[in-house]
């Protein structure tokens, strides 16, 4: 009996020793790589849910812009400045983010879905890609970049997309955000401007194939209808004959013409309309996509009196940081004044991304970092009343960060272009998305 008991004790001791040995070997395996032991739980469970930035490695941020356009170049310069200012100085030397260099992977959106698809593949081939700032054109984002990056849980923060569809809850992709305004606001202000001048027969020329143009045009017609106006849409697809488009516009007997199409068609259509005696004196408004230096140069005196809508630049001048530090740095880097409004939105987009990375990462500055992709989105969503260059930013679930925007109407030649010292503002209004939702 005693012997049996002793044997049982020996058996238990051997079993316990085996269990302890297996446990020790298991724990040694788990801890063999410093990556495994230091990583947050979510990263160990699913390595694709995080970006690991090793010691001395950079943080990769993509940019997906159309640098052939002024607003794309404007955004690109501002993003470069944001990286420069990571050390708290605009000195031409890039700062670091959490002790790591920031490497911008620059790609072109070409303002088209086809170019964007190629570029986004290039960006997605970098496994360490943390976030992307872009796109310039709404058509490059809607159903293209917004879907591709959201699928990979990579935030896409646009400084220039304004098409309402991008943040429509029915279409919104969860990792898509924008610091630019929603064109629902621009359309409502433009319609209010028309109503203030008692113009009720309003004709919009928009490109049905371009989400920016068509959605701004439709939002304007909807807003005009709320103001008891009558809106008519004339199609102006890419490559259309400007004469034919102008003829179709003239046939609607408009009291005001609103061009939401992009260059070069908008410039050509405007020239034809301003040259035709039937429409030469009809007030004309162009959206910010067309309102640049090129338009004024190419139309010459014909552009006089043409209205342009876009963000109210006077607000930027009220920001001391923008006026006394940012603008000088911009001029030093680009060699000219900002040609469009989008530099402010782009600087803000970059800052929001940097801020979110700081809050979504774990690890010591300069050491090994883990950036959780879901936390990055959550960090962006926790942004409330961020005092950016472009205004207060509050990022919501539908992706809009600019909740309250001041839109102004300028009269040529006093548009807010790089060469214009004092823009000639004829109307300005601040509206919020909440106000528009309430009005709907």
């Amino acid at each position, binding site marked *: 009996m005693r012997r049996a008991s002793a044997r049982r004790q020996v058996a238990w001791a051997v079993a316990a020793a085996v269990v302890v040995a297996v446990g020790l070997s298991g724990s040694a395996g788990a801890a063999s790589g410093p990556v495994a032991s230091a990583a947050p739980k979510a990263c160990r469970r699913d390595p694709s849910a995080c970006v690991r930035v090793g010691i001395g490695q950079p943080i990769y941020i993509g940019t997906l812009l159309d640098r052939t356009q002024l607003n794309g170049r404007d955004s690109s310069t501002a993003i470069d400045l944001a990286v420069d200012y990571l050390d708290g100085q605009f000195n031409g030397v890039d700062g670091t983010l959490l002790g790591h260099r920031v490497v911008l992977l620059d790609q072109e959106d070409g303002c088209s879905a086809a170019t964007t698809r190629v570029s986004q593949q290039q960006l997605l081939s970098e496994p360490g890609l943390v976030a992307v700032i872009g796109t310039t054109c709404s058509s490059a984002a809607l159903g293209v970049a917004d879907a591709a990056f959201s699928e990979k849980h990579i935030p896409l923060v646009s400084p220039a997309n304004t098409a309402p569809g991008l943040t429509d809850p029915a279409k919104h992709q969860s990792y898509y955000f924008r610091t630019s305004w929603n064109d629902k606001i621009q359309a409502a202000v433009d319609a209010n401007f028309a109503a203030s001048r008692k113009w009720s027969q309003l004709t919009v020329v928009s490109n049905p194939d371009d989400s920016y143009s068509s959605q701004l045009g439709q939002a304007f017609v909807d807003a005009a209808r709320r103001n008891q106006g009558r809106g008519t849409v004339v199609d102006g697809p890419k490559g259309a004959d400007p004469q034919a488009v102008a003829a179709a516009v003239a046939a609607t007997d408009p009291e005001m013409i609103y061009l939401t199409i992009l260059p070069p068609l908008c410039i050509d259509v405007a020239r034809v309309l301003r040259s035709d005696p039937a429409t030469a004196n009809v007030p004309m408004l162009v959206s910010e996509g067309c309102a640049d230096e090129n338009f004024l140069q190419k139309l010459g005196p014909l552009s006089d009196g043409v209205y342009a809508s876009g963000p109210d630049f006077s607000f930027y001048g009220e920001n001391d*940081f923008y006026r006394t530090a940012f603008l000088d740095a911009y001029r030093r880097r680009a060699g000219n004044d900002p040609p469009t409004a989008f530099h402010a939105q782009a600087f803000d987009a970059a800052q929001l991304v940097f801020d979110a990375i700081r809050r979504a990462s774990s690890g010591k500055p300069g050491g090994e970092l883990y950036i959780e992709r879901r936390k990055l989105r959550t960090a962006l969503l926790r942004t409330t009343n*961020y*005092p950016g260059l472009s205004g207060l930013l509050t990022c919501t679930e539908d992706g809009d960060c600019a909740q309250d925007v001041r839109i102004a109407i300028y009269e040529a030649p006093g548009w807010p272009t790089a060469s214009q010292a004092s823009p000639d503002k004829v109307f300005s209004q601040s509206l919020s998305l909440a106000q528009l939702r309430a009005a709907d």
Partner: protein
Amino acid sequence: MTFLTGLPVVWLLAFTLAFVVLGSAGMVVALSRASKEGRDNAGATAAAYMTALGSLFAILTGFLINTEYSTLRHANEVVGQEAAAISQLGYASAGLPPPDAVLIQQRLATYADALATVEWSALADNRSESSPAFAGLAGLQAQVVRLGSEEYPPPDAVASMRDALQDLTQTRRERIAIASQGLPAALFALSVIAGLALIANAIVVAMRAGHRYAYVAIGIIVLVALDLAAILAISAPFRGPFQASTAPLAGVAQELRDSAYLPWVRK
């Protein structure tokens, strides 16, 4: 002395007990060689001095404990003030443009972390300038000075940051001064001598009274050892067993990491 005050509490107790017990054993051996008559006479005399020696030891050690405890409490207050200054700098920086506010707060978090984790050991080694906190404070100073030279930061925010930074620098200097202060060696030596004299006296009295009264002497031996250990333990606020708490600094570092001072981050 520096070595002693840096020992963990168990080792410190063991050391003082061993020292006192060995000393007592030596006294017992020496006294046991005396004649019975001599021991009786010595016992009668020693009994008369017990109160005086006990009072002397109590006053000396009481004074030392009070002084060293006050220093420890002051060190804790200074650390609390340092955490408050970090917090004030965090709040003041919230009035800056976001890229600057984030930068200041990130540097503050690194500074607070360095204070909470490595600063004490640097102070213990008398190498405060080798601590990462030293470079961290220099970086913060440079950043605040640079901001002060710019046109755009709100003057109130810059003034408040300067005040907070001044407080930070001042509390740091005060902390370093406290760390450089040692236990007053002469006073401690006097306490040790008084303690040993008290023990010797107690042993003489106990030997006269008989072995049954040895526990009185043993009690005094243990009490003297504990008293001396207590003095040594509390006399080094940045390296001994009873250190100034880093909890306020760790707390403010955590707040900074959680973006508690960034007004645009929804809590």
